[in-house]
């Protein structure tokens, strides 16, 4: 009964979303503000109704109501409580519901936040958000409803995919969706600006804050996904250039491009159309990403079958959104042309534009790589794989170019950089970068990419350090305080700029983590009997025993490995080979020992009943920097979001 109520609320939400599209349009036409208030209420109500829908489904999960088909397919009576709650987004139907719920929450918040300050934009914002919700709700109500009942109900559920039964995986999809959905607000603002023809400065400010927030969520989501892949999939890699991963990476790249180029619009009132284009592309990629993953267009052989009908609907919806967005842009753009005047090609403005070019080409590379197998299959009827070696060869050089620009952009003068400015800011960093590269060579870096990586990291890092040193010294001298306080004053004096610096430092830290853990990785796979030991880098690993362990809904063979350095016992590592009861599907649980920001990573891919096992040991030096950098990036964003307003802002 409660589930039916939830189902019913979602249907009402669908009806209300139609009102949410049309009421603002009526309001615009009749200039009657009542209609706008109605649409605002509709939007708020949709949020409440969808919350009720989610709650009713959670109720079904908690009461183990397996007569609900979706509940039965994603949970099981033995599934622990925590995962039972998260199982809602463990499958197709539920994740769509979560997606649209977050969308309704964000748009409700956006409307309440900006109702007074952005009255001109409101009708468009509500209409655009409602239209996107309408599209999703149609899909949920008619083609993939999580509320469907089955009769007779199965005795027990099929269980949540074991790979998803993991703390990081419970939070990873909601974070990603918050990122995707967060971009819908800037998108709606951009559409409002296009429709109304008002390309004033006001929309940019709001858009910027929402983009930063969405970017933060997406970054956290991607980082969590990487960490999950790292320790759960058991091969110790954090990024496999899989279509699902790429789908989240593309909006991130273009969103990052927007965050940079919007600064030019703010400072110099240029590139308005370009920024609109970037906002639209970012959200389009979020939608395309969601759908590529959901429609099954990109899934490979021997995975779940696709449903062309659902896919076709998704495609029509996608076409409607993208068609409207780009169509309006194309029609309106010529009228919106802002005058572009530059003082010199060598200036921060143009570095920002080159940054945009690199980000877009990077995104295009991922896009091409992701879709190429589909293209070649459609065109030639053949199958190809575009895997990590491709991206390492093609994406990485572009990424290194971006890193180089990251060292240039913030430190080159606006308008026109003189030769003196260039020399003062970049000569020393270039020398430092060369020294770092030589040092890296001496430390055993050999591949051109790792050496180039060392060069750009050295360059970008030293520009940041030089800048910090200079301003700290300046403020220290001005206020007669020590350097640390000087730095703090400089930071407070222009928190926005230094929040950006913090994010850049985060990027560098992540890159150092990636390079170090790739170049210095040690891997060994051995077959060991109980009592045997093997040497892994500076460590010795000894198999002390293999035991049976039992979890709430799985049983496992657990290897107890002792980790020694010299004669010191550092820790006991306990990788598992699990079998989940309901699905009988095996998973490999890794065991990790963190030391000096690196990991000793151990898995046990095979166990034999005779007391021997295959052990796979990997040493990943500095791997924690990969995620530490992510944390620093997030910190930078938070410092940007919570900063004292300056008078000129």
């Amino acid at each position, binding site marked *: 009964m409660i589930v039916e109520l939830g189902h019913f609320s979602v249907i009402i939400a669908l009806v209300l979303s139609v009102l949410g599209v049309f009421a603002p349009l009526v309001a615009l036409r009749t200039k009657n503000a009542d209609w706008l208030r109605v649409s605002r209420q509709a939007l708020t109500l949709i949020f409440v109704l969808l919350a009720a829908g989610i709650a009713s489904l959670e109720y079904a999960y908690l009461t183990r109501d397996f007569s609900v088909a979706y509940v039965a397919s994603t949970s099981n009576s033995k599934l622990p409580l925590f995962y039972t709650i998260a199982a809602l987004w463990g499958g197709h139907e539920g994740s769509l519901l979560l997606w649209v719920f977050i969308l309704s929450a964000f748009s409700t918040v956006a409307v309440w936040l900006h109702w007074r300050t952005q009255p001109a934009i409101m009708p468009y914002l509500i209409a655009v958000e409602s239209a996107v919700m309408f599209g999703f709700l149609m899909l949920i109500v008619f083609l993939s409803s999580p509320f469907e009942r089955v009769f007779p109900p199965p005795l027990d559920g099929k269980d949540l995919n074991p790979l998803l039964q993991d703390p990081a995986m419970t939070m990873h999809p909601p974070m990603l969706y918050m990122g995707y959905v967060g971009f819908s607000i800037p998108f709606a603002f951009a559409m409002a600006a296009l429709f109304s023809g008002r390309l004033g400065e006001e929309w940019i400010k709001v858009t910027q804050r929402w983009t930063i927030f969405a970017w933060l969520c997406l970054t956290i989501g991607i980082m969590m996904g990487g960490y999950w892949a790292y320790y759960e999939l058991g091969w110790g890699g954090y990024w496999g250039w899989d279509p699902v991963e790429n789908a989240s990476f593309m909006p991130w790249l273009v969103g990052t491009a927007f965050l940079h180029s919007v600064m030019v619009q703010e400072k110099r009132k240029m590139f308005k*159309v370009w920024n609109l284009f970037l906002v639209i592309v970012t959200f389009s990629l979020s939608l395309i990403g969601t759908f590529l993953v959901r*429609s*099954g*267009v*990109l*899934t*490979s*052989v*021997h*995975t779940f*079958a*696709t449903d*062309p009908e659902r*896919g*076709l609907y998704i*495609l029509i919806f*996608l*076409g409607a959104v*993208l*068609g409207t967005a*780009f169509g309006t*842009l*194309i029609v309106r*753009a*010529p009228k919106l*042309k802002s005058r572009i005047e530059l003082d010199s090609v060598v200036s921060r403005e143009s570095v920002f534009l080159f940054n945009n070019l690199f980000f877009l080409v990077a995104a295009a590379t991922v896009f091409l790589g992701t*879709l190429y197998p*589909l*293209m070649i*299959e*459609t065109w030639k*009827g*053949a*199958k190809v794989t575009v895997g990590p070696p491709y991206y390492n060869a093609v994406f990485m050089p572009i990424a290194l170019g971006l890193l180089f620009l990251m060292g240039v952009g913030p430190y080159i003068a606006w308008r026109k950089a003189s030769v003196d400015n260039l020399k003062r800011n970049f000569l020393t960093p270039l020398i430092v970068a060369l020294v770092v590269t030589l040092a890296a060579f001496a430390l055993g870096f050999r591949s051109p990419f790792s050496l180039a990586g060392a060069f750009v990291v050295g360059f970008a890092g030293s520009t940041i350090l030089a800048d910090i040193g200079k301003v700290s010294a300046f403020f220290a001298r001005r206020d007669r305080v020590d350097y640390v306080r000087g730095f703090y004053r400089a930071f407070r004096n222009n928190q926005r700029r230094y929040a950006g610096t913090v994010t850049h430092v985060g990027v560098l830290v992540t890159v150092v983590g990636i390079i170090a853990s790739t170049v210095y990785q040690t891997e060994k796979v051995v077959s060991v009997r109980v009592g045997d030991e093997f040497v892994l880098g500076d460590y010795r690993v000894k198999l002390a025993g293999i035991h049976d362990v039992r979890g709430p809904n799985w049983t496992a063979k657990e290897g107890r490995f002792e980790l020694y350095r010299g004669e010191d016992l550092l820790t006991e590592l306990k990788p598992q080979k699990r079998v989940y009861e309901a699905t009988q599907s095996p998973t490999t649980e890794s065991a990790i020992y963190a030391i000096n920001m690196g990991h000793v990573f151990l898995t046990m891919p095979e166990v034999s009943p005779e007391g021997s096992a295959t052990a796979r040991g990997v040493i990943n030096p500095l791997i924690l920097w990969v995620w530490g950098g992510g944390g620093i990036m997030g910190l930078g964003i938070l410092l940007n979001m919570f900063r004292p307003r300056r008078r000129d802002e």
Partner: protein
Amino acid sequence: MTRAWQIILVGALLGLFALFYQGLWGNPRYIPTILIGTPAPVFAAPQVGSSDSLSLDQFKGKVVLLNFWASWCLECKLEHNNLLALNERFGRDPNFVMLGVNYQDKEPDALEYLRTYGSNFQHVRDVKGAIAFDYGVYGVPETFLIDQQGVIRCKTIGPIVGAVYDNYVQRVLPALLSGSPEQVGC
């Protein structure tokens, strides 16, 4: 925004949607095999339930239906009765032979499977997956048709059921047996 950019943008969007549209109808199970039209790799392998070896050479000059299966494979059960029916129907033809290849399986399980579901043709064991590699097999069930000249003419991924089965009965096998592999149409 100049005209050129507008055209590029519209063109890119249209191209993208055409691609997605095509992608929707693509069969995710379809894997083009590069082996069609090439000589079938010859193998010799022990039979299921005995140590006697069986070689593909023994069936030279015959149309061979080669079916890869396993006891743990659910879709193999779906097509099993159809396989038996195919052999009922075409097995009397001296130029036709069916051969099962038991893949990634344990012999007792395979025997149990054959006892439970019945069998009217011979099966060999692919112990290390070597035969499957030679035939570029991805998973089970997969079925190959080899003509009288020993050339691979057809490959079906997934179970021989429904329209696939009808096509086998009405067109593919009669055409192969009448010695006109050009008109096989599979």
